């Protein structure tokens, strides 16, 4: 049974906080005013003040999170539009995705070890470079905590989006394909959304790299984990 009133309420609060924080960010484009940081903060404050558990909120506004699925499907269109470029650079893209994913898993594991993070939390860190639907699936599969992985995914995406945007504006690395791959592999959909308006080609490469990296990780996660455990 769906509670329509609660769904309407929590969806409206989510949409309103996003609209407000985006308007604020347009006026004052500081990194710490990014809607993806400030909107959840506002929602968290409302939940805390009115003593609402997260599960209640999630039951009402969770369909928005579900929309990430169709959004990933929609990447088919920019990928199709850029097919000539992809056909030309598939070797370099594949090389970048494999080395990038390996770096993500190995660095996640090693850094957690150095910083004294262990158990399910350590496993939750591993799939953070891939988009949420993938990452949550991988996290569940390898024994992490999917909800927590989603937060790491978003933190990774925000940082990667900011660094990626700065890099694209300065032309680092010089090739558009390399820029797109770097952002798609490291910062998945959040990074891709950030650079899409700057350059359509960078956006399309990032979208493709993001989807394929997700698939690659899904296929290799159990293998990587087995290897890391020795």
């Amino acid at each position, binding site marked *: 049974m769906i509670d329509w009133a609660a769904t309407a309420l929590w969806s409206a609060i989510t949409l309103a906080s996003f609209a407000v924080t985006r308007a604020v960010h347009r006026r004052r484009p500081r990194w710490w005013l990014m809607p*993806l940081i400030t909107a959840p903060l506002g929602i968290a404050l409302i939940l805390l003040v009115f003593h609402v558990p997260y599960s209640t909120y999630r039951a009402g506004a969770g369909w*928005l999170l579900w929309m990430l699925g169709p*959004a990933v499907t929609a990447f088919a269109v920019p990928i199709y539009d850029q097919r000539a470029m992809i056909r030309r*650079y598939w*070797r370099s893209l594949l090389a970048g995705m494999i080395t990038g994913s390996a770096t*993500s898993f190995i660095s996640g594991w090693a850094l957690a070890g150095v910083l004294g993070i262990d158990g399910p939390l350590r496993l939750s860190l591993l799939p953070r470079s891939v988009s949420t639907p993938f990452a949550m699936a991988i996290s569940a599969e390898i024994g992490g905590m999917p909800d927590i992985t989603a937060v790491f995914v978003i933190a990774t995406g925000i*940082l990667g989006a900011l660094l990626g945007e700065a*890099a694209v504006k300065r032309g680092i690395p010089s090739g558009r*394909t390399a820029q797109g791959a770097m952002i798609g592999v490291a910062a998945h959909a959040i990074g*891709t959304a950030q650079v899409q308006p700057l350059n359509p080609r960078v956006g399309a490469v990032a979208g493709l790299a993001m989807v394929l990296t997700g698939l690659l990780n899904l296929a290799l996660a159990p293998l990587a984990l087995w290897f890391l455990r020795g």
Partner: protein
Amino acid sequence: MRTIWQIALIMAFYGAGEFTARLTHAPLPASVIGLALILIALHRRWIKPGQLRDGAQGLLGRMLLFFVPAVPVLIEHREFVSMLGVRLMLAVAIGTVLVMVVTGAVVQMVARADD
């Protein structure tokens, strides 16, 4: 209005992806199967890119909003408001920079060989 219809069409592909995943027990997310189905439909010219472009832009342009409901889960995890949270963020930050540097450098190198 056209954008809404196109979004509905993309969601129909997503639904077909979900259906295929259930039917075949493929270990792939519905979104990826849906994406592949759209690519096939475009390639075979069953549909034109123009019939989806506004809808795709409509969905992709709102993607950041779709992430928002995942973050307030942190109110259930007060233990992160501590040194543990700082260490986790450090791991995320260093890892992200490493992945970007490695991926950017590798693609740049191999792409140059391609040209």
